[in-house]
């Protein structure tokens, strides 16, 4: 343990930057936005000018809207982050910032001054509109350190918590500290973590397991991916502490196969921790042993449900089973098992290091600490944010994310994925905590937040989620297997303009039955998107049924394309674009669309240079 302390001090001394460093955000999103082309351009310029500069890679700092993001830091100066960096911008950026020493303020997003004097004209991170209201705990290393380096993790306070736990705390004290913190499960249901741990600790048995649920399947959610890619060691340290607290010597991380980079970084991190005696036998010279394995999921959303996940680790079909017995009593291979998700474990080292009171001082009475959200859909600034519990939806969407794209009208925010609900404008001042969201008909879920504007049809959104849950239903219990199918049929019918008013009652009854009778969380929560849209957007359902209109102009079957004779010049571009031969007219005369032939693809509208075609 003394060795670890000395190692950390050495690492911290050597962390000072003595030559310029350029860092590129290379998580999945950074790569998708073209980060590798930016690196190639940087290397080319470095070679051409013969510059003494390190080019490094980091994870996602959270500003997805501005990827690819490049950080440039000169020795003793603030770290400056540039957004939307293209290979074409690279030479100019290097010339000005690196060679002349003048940061390009118009391209800079934020700066992190550290101990240096801030540059003028660039927002300091803590005062920027995007980060000013955020409190970064779990995401504190994201985009700022090298996620593949154990050295950087330790230098930035990593493994201080494990040191404290193994050096001075009994397992009971660790559990007590987690209870004091008020931490609740970040995977969706919000069960108190400390209580879960004590159940598993008290369960009889010599062999116990800890499992990390990294099967982040909610469409619209990437918190866990970002944390695993950006700070894998924090999850590993959190799991190690949990293993000590409950008396386990073996653990599994169940990560979905769609996250190859997360799996790769976890493997590297586990190997590095093993090598330094932070995993495996006699951790930090004590008698505590803990082996950690990775299991890659094989593509089944239901495996996010804990009993299905355990079945999958055992090599079976991932189907849930009746609880009780809960995994805390009978989990993996029948042994007591503690399951938490990625964000929950990642919080643990911070709680232990700072203490439970510190964590409990953030958030609301019943929802403590911070929560990571993925802000996506039609907002100006999409990205990954971490905010204290209790912040309002309005603050998140309008202050942090800058409001709606193209300044359109806000319509709804979908929270909690397929298990969550859609909340309308008059719920925007709702504080974000487990209980308020539940009462409003949504759930915290894992933290996906998809913002929708006037062009999104709420019936179509409900249909979209049902289509998803219907496909992913494992088929074990009848309410979910049959119920999702029937509900999807009704929703599809309504979207096609073939719905009847009594369908709405049937839909609501079915939704309540499935909610009350399905076997697992997937089935019990899948009606939420329907119930919440029926509650808040019933008029849209009625418009589809009674008027055969889609108010958002989104449901294809209900669209009508027409040509404005005043604006049409008879150029014929639309006639050529129409794949169905539905448009006719004399040259230089106004054209017409035959509604019987029109397949409503919208190709004509895209081709018309005169804005003569409209969609009703």
């Amino acid at each position, binding site marked *: 343990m003394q060795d670890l302390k000395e190692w950390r001090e050495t690492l911290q001394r050597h962390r000072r930057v003595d030559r310029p460093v350029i860092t590129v955000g290379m998580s999945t999103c950074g790569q998708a936005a073209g980060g590798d082309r930016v690196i190639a351009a940087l290397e080319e310029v470095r070679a051409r000018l013969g510059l003494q500069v390190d080019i490094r890679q980091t994870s996602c700092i959270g500003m997805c809207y501005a990827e690819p993001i490049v950080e440039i830091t000169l020795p003793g100066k603030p770290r400056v982050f540039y957004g939307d960096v293209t290979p074409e911008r690279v030479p100019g950026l290097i010339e000005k910032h690196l060679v002349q020493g003048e940061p390009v303020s118009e391209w800079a997003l934020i700066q992190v001054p550290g101990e240096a004097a801030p540059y003028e004209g660039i927002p300091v991170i803590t005062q920027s509109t995007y980060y000013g209201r955020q409190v970064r705990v779990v995401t504190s290393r994201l985009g700022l350190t090298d996620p593949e380096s154990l050295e950087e993790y330790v230098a930035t306070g990593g493994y201080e918590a494990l040191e404290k736990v193994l050096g001075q705390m009994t397992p009971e004290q660790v559990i007590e500290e987690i209870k004091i913190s008020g931490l609740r499960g970040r995977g969706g249901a919000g069960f108190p973590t400390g209580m879960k741990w004590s159940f598993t600790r008290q369960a009889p048995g010599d062999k116990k397991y800890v499992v990390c649920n990294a099967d982040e399947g909610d469409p619209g959610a990437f918190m866990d991916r970002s944390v695993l890619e950006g700070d894998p060691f924090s999850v590993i340290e959190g799991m190690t502490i949990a293993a000590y607290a409950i008396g386990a010597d073996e653990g599994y991380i169940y990560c979905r196969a769609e996250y190859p980079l997360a799996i790769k970084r976890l493997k590297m991190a586990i190997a590095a921790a093993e090598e330094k005696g932070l995993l495996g036998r006699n951790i930090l010279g004590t008698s505590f042993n803990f082996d950690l394995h990775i299991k*890659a999921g094989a593509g089944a959303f239901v495996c996010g449900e804990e009993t299905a996940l355990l079945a999958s680790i055992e*090599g079976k079909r991932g189907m849930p089973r009746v609880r009780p017995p809960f995994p805390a009593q009978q989990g993996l291979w029948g042994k007591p098992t503690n399951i938490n998700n990625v964000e929950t474990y990642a919080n643990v080292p911070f709680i232990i290091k700072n203490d439970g009171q510190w964590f409990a001082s953030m958030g609301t009475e019943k929802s403590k600490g911070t929560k990571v959200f993925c802000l996506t859909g039609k907002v100006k600034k999409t990205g990954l944010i971490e905010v204290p519990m209790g912040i309002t939806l309005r603050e998140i969407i309008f202050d942090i994310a800058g409001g709606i794209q193209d300044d359109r009208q806000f319509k709804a925010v979908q929270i909690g994925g397929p298990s969550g609900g859609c909340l309308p404008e008059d719920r925007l001042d709702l504080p974000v905590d487990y209980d308020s969201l539940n009462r409003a008909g949504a759930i915290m879920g894992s933290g996906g937040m998809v913002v929708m504007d006037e062009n999104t049809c709420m019936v179509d959104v409900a249909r979209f989620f049902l289509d998803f849950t219907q496909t992913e239903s494992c088929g074990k219990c009848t309410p979910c297997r049959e119920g999702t199918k029937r509900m999807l049929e009704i929703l599809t019918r309504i979207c096609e303009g073939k719905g009847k008013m009594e369908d709405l009652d049937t839909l609501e009854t079915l939704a309540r039955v499935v909610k009350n009778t399905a076997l697992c969380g997937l089935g019990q929560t899948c009606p939420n998107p329907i119930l919440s849209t029926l509650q808040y957007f019933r008029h849209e359902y009625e418009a589809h049924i009674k008027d055969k209109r889609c108010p958002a102009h989104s449901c294809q079957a209900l669209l009508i394309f027409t040509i404005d004779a005043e604006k049409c010049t008879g150029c014929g571009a639309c006639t050529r674009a129409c794949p169905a031969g539905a448009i006719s007219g004399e040259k230089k005369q106004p054209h017409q669309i035959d509604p019987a032939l029109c397949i409503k693809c919208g190709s004509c509208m895209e081709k018309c240079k005169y804005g003569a075609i409209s969609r009703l």
Partner: protein
Amino acid sequence: MMDSGSKNDANIKAKALAEVLKRYAGTKGALIPLLQEAQEIYGYLPREVMREIAMELKIPFSRVYGVATFYTQFHLKPRGRNIIRICQGTACHVRGGARLLEAISTALGIGKNETTADGRFTLETVACLGSCGLAPVMMINEETYGRLTPEKVPAILEKY
């Protein structure tokens, strides 16, 4: 020539499979990782391979088949050299993921879960790739592409 080449290829694959089976011998819960690695080798899960795995693990073939058909990751038919996976997640849906699918489907002349005649591409959809901030997105093999429009598609396909 061709014949001995393909025989050679089959031998290499069989050898690789035997090694994987040896590596997992005695491991608890080995079925899924075994199927994953077998699919890595063969590109899909041929029936004989599933049989061999069942024999090796001493479990009924029906259980192997049950698991292989339960998870979307496993494929029982040969697939193309390049796998296109278009994200159909919420954020992509809201930002035009369906139009992207349509554009690629038209460009390649194949539908969902189909393979082009020359075996160059297989077109699949996926529930969410977790790059929602850059929606709509797709993956070709291990590469992720974001902020896509139908217009950007041909140039990307060109690379494969």
